[in-house]
């Protein structure tokens, strides 16, 4: 009897509790049409990780840079078509010999605290970057500078020892306020948690592990942004983030291919959100350890590429949300050579090439044998990346068809790096690179970068590629550079030091109350300050 009463009590309180939870706001149906641009409202953006340091010079994680991108400006930036244009610099001149760049800075730009921005800030930023006491990862490009000077308040001039094409883009780094940092220890500065910049949004608050809030900067030199607040919510789990989005707690996030293809196709979702899709600046590859005799013959590498069906990988791993990669550049950018095609899927050719390379006989397990040794190798990849893992499995099956036995080993990133990659102790690996806007690929492909802990860890050495890379980075002439990079892609397509697998798509989704979004090669956020919510649809 007593139990019965207790149970009834519990039930009653549960009902009351649920009723108490019911006071939620009604979801508004999005009204179509562009509406009138209006100031106000807020955008809530989801992120897997928290920022670490809002002085971008000292940070190395994506969230920190995402926030810094709204708070700070560089001297230059990429526009919607990925061309370099002025940001804090109105214009710049490159001297005839390509050694000196003179930046003409904007007049009247104010830091968020009201102090005027001048060339002294640029000079400070440069000095603190190359200061050996600053623990930064970004000093390298600036060490090439022989002299930096600020002849007047609105001019900044740098001279290089030799012409260095990536130099211009390197000045897109965030300029720091010298009046708040000069003479202080930058590693202990408050600005790491409370940044002060010149950008469209000023810092408001940061609740560690929960959210970062920015608010529109009224005096921004390109005009006040329409959206009043930018809220960066940290939700470490992707499924949770997706549910938050559907429940209305988030306005913007990046979708996974499955979510894009299979879970967002309802009329309700489509009326409340707009999905976007464009190639990401990254590619995934299968890289061979070229020091390993097994992969020394390029016909073997060509054969492996021929045996892999890249379309199938894109379909199976990315649900079609990506495109085949033939080289290290993003399709559609100026350095990308559209005429280069590497080896398409053709298992017959794969077998032929392998036979030419001496892999003729099959043993009892159906594995190719040469000089008594079976063709078997291990693909390494890092833990926590499901897509790479699936790629490895698909490749494993395809290579089995042509008589190559593949094993897969998944390792924690730190262990993969220190115990295998740094020691050159691997057969092949599936990894990815981000594609930088400047096409210089010295660090990954030049033969001088094959040392321990360097990025040409597969040991690719090609004299012609070396020469072309050096030539490409030492001129500002885009046509000349283009010729170099076009040729490099031809060589890589033939040599197949990597099997370039795919360039995935970025799949952002934004609440349909935001208007003014114009997808371009640069993505969607390049014109964020022009996004707006019509007055009648504003929520916050």
């Amino acid at each position, binding site marked *: 009897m007593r139990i019965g009463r207790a149970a009834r009590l519990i039930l009653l309180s549960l009902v009351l509790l649920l009723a108490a939870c019911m006071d939620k706001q009604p*979801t508004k149906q999005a009204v179509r049409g562009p509406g009138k641009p209006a100031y106000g409202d807020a955008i809530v953006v989801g992120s897997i990780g928290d920022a670490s340091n809002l002085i971008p010079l000292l940070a190395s994680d994506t969230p920190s840079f995402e926030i810094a991108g709204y708070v700070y400006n560089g001297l230059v930036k990429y526009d919607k078509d990925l061309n370099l244009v002025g940001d804090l610099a109105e214009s710049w001149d490159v001297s005839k010999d390509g050694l000196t760049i003179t930046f003409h800075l904007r007049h009247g730009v104010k830091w968020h605290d009201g102090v005027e921005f001048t060339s002294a800030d640029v000079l400070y930023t440069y000095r603190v970057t190359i200061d050996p006491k600053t*623990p930064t990862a970004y000093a390298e490009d600036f060490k090439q500078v022989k002299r930096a000077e600020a002849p007047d308040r609105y001019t900044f001039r740098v001279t290089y020892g030799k012409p260095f094409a990536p130099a211009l883009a390197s000045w897109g780094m965030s300029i720091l306020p010298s009046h708040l940092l000069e003479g202080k220890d930058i590693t202990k500065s408050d600005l790491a948690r409370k940044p002060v910049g010149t950008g469209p949004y000023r810092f408001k608050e940061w609740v*560690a592990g*929960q959210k970062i809030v920015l608010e529109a900067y009224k005096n921004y030199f390109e005009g006040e942004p329409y959206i009043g607040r930018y809220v960066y919510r*940290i939700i470490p789990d992707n499924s949770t983030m997706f549910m938050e989005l*559907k*429940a209305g*707690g988030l306005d913007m996030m990046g979708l996974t291919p499955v979510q894009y293809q299979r879970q967002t196709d309802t009329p309700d979702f489509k009326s409340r959100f707009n999905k976007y899709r464009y190639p990401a600046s990254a590619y995934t590859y299968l890289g061979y350890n070229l020091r390993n005799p097994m992969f020394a013959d390029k016909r073997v590498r060509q054969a492996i590429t021929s045996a892999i069906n890249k379309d199938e990988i894109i379909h199976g791993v990315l649900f079609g949300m990506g495109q085949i990669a033939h080289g290290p550049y993003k399709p559609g950018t100026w350095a990308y050579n559209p005429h280069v095609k590497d080896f398409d899927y053709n298992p017959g050719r794969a077998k032929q090439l392998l036979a030419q390379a001496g892999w003729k006989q099959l043993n009892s397990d159906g594995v190719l044998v040469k000089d008594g040794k079976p063709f078997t190798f291990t693909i390494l990849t890092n833990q926590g990346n499901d897509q790479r893992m699936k790629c490895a499995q698909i490749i494993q099956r395809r290579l089995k068809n042509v008589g190559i036995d593949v094993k897969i080993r998944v390792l924690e*990133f730190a262990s993969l*790096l220190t115990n295998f990659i740094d020691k050159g102790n691997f057969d092949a690996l599936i990894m990815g690179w981000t594609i930088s806007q400047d096409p210089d690929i010295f660090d990954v492909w030049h033969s001088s970068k094959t040392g321990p802990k360097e990025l040409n860890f597969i040991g690719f050495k090609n004299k012609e590629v070396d020469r072309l890379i050096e030539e490409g980075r030492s001129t500002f002439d885009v046509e000349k550079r283009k010729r170099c990079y076009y040729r490099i892609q031809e060589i890589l397509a033939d040599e197949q030091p990597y099997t370039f697998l795919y360039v995935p798509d970025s799949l952002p989704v934004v609440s349909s109350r935001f208007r003014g979004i114009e997808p371009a090669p640069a993505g969607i956020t390049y014109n964020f300050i022009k996004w707006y919510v019509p007055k009648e649809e504003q929520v916050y």
Partner: protein
Amino acid sequence: MLGYLIKRLLMLVPLFLGITLITFTVIHLAPGEPVEMQTAMNPKISAQTRQKLREYYGLDKPLYVQYGKWLTRLSKLDFGRSFASDNRPVIDKIKERIPITLSLNIIALVLEFGLAIPIGILAATHRETLLDRGITIFVFLGFAVPTFWLALLLMYLFGVKFGWLPISGLHSLGSEGFSPVRWLIDMGRHLLLPIAVATFGSLAGLSRYMRANMLEVLGQDYITTARAKGLGERAVIYRHALKNALLPVITLLGFSLPGLIGGSVIFETIFAIPGMGQLFYMGVMARDYPLVMGILVIGAFLTLVGNLLADLCYALADPRIRHGG
């Protein structure tokens, strides 16, 4: 009793040092260094930069020097600065996360003990009945169901489908402007699901333990005596049996002390609760030695204190231990 206490306290010092030495060594044995993790696969890093960073963090020194330095700082209660790129004092990073984890864990612990003990008693007194079996199934269900799965299902049901509860985080947007009461209610609504899931998952262990204790006690001679005296069933169970059955639970309570500052990574990740579990996990993945050591030291300290407290309470509660020691 005092001598016992002093002896136990003195024993803590070498034990504590031993723990720190072992953990310090083990962490450094893991492949990869903080510098590696920060600079990995970054084309812009040169060997000099990497060397510079290593010196900056003092990683170029031999391990025993690093340990010595760390221990010296610790003796002044300084946990050092994090090796993550925010470079903040470790104690600050821990401090901003402890209140959340601690309050969540205390609420969950109170609920766990508050529910599991009556459930255990109920199961024991109704042994082998339908109620007992029902309880067994219920608590084992909680134990067996993966937390993240249950959490996601509940979030979908209450958050997306019905829209009754917030899905993740601790506060609604704009909660800064709420009145204190509304602010508390808002936070309570956010915590309802996480606490419910956490409690449901933890009921099994303690309630089974309680049931077994109770059954053992109920089989004792003095219970038969009490019944033979003609005492009512309630008096027998609640006055005579329960007290003795609760004794081992004291030990468990002591053991849960260090657990109070530990959080579950999966759980915190799913609910987007910035607690200690995530902090520790990220620290380990980034090889952030000072942070990892800081959390482990606090954990070790609480474990030692918890054990001591449990023993002392036990001694207070049970004269046999008090006099025997």
